[in-house]
């Protein structure tokens, strides 16, 4: 993968591009981090690019000339390339399970945010998220307490870190100490720390 020519195209936002950027950072993969103006800032660049994308959406990943769409398909691909997708078929399923739980939370939150549903968002923050984190805490305990899958660092840990680091109110972590410890340990990985400290600062 170090020899692959890689370009990630997304908006100048973290959002659905950031899981891929975290993976590429962890893997030490050199890539072109192409960023378009968000449509609410200036839609010109996206209007021009959109018809050239497979599904009229971003992110798209260009890996050695092959274009892959769908953020989670791209993420799983990169995770496999850099060796953190799970070491057996069962571990890969266990990793995918965690990814899907987190994606459900992200997608629900994004829906409520863009619908400007304040009541729904409040319920999401105070009920849904703590409940899910509690279930994830039980999962990590059942796996030995150090990592989400196979007692070994995987994309599941990185994706959970990415999600938790975006939470506006981190006090919710006080109820889930093993997850809290995990996210701190992921944050301390040199390539993650370097990326987070140096990436462009954006609203979302």
């Amino acid at each position, binding site marked *: 993968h170090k020899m692959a020519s890689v370009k990630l195209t997304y908006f100048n936002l973290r959002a659905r591009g950031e899981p891929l950027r975290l993976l590429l950072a962890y893997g030490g993969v050199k890539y072109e981090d192409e960023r378009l103006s968000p449509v609410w800032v200036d839609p010109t660049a996206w209007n021009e690019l959109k018809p050239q994308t497979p599904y009229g959406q971003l992110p798209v990943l260009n890996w050695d000339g092959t274009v892959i769409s769908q953020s989670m398909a791209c993420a799983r691909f990169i995770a496999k390339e850099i060796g*953190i997708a799970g070491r057996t078929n069962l571990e890969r399923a266990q990793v995918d399970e965690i990814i899907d739980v987190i994606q459900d939370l992200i997608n629900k939150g994004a829906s409520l945010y863009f619908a400007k549903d304040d009541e729904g968002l409040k319920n999401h923050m105070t009920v849904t998220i703590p409940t899910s984190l509690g279930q994830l805490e039980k999962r990590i305990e059942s796996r030995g307490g150090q990592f989400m899958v196979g007692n070994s660092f995987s994309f599941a840990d990185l994706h959970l870190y990415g999600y938790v680091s975006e939470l506006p109110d981190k006090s919710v972590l006080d109820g889930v100490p093993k997850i809290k410890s995990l996210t701190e340990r992921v944050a301390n990985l040199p390539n993650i720390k370097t990326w987070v400290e140096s990436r462009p600062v954006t609203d979302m």
Partner: protein
Amino acid sequence: MPTVKLTYFNLRARAEPCRLLLAYSGTQYEDERLTAPWDDMAPWTALKPKTPWGQIPMLTWDGEVIAQSMACARFLAREFGLAGRNSMEMAQVDEIIDVIQDLLNAYYSLYHAKDTAGQQKHLETTVATGMGQLEKKLESRGGQFMVGNAFSWADLHLFFYVNDMQLMTNKAVDAAFPKIQNLVQRVASIPNIKAWVDSRPATAL
């Protein structure tokens, strides 16, 4: 769930690499400790003829006895998925283990010979050179882990070396090597490693 017993003296020394691997994996095991021979020869004298090579540590894994500290450790590393993910990575892990063992064996020799001048020279020259080479290796591998940009027994054994040299000499052999220092700190903060180091018996060696 295998039945596991590790037999050694009540020392860290040549059993601690195995104890760290077992701790990391969360495997339940019997941590059998004999009185150090310089405190009381009798327990070891009784056990010695029952060992394959007249030495300890010995690992008993589901009734099968394995001797030789590094054979035991490498076996555990494989069992717990830390030995390297392909043949090349396994060789790269073994290379790091062997470099560390060379340093450690040289120090143990000087320690048991009570050669304080030799120990000082060893720290200032051999160790400094060796750590510099390991730092370069870590950089060449991306700076996060010794092998394959993934946590392995190589990282755990480097932690063992730095931690144990600190306990034996009261010196931080990683002080001049920032990436190793960072790696050692990160290994130290792995929950099972932290819990073991905080709770293991305190012994001179």
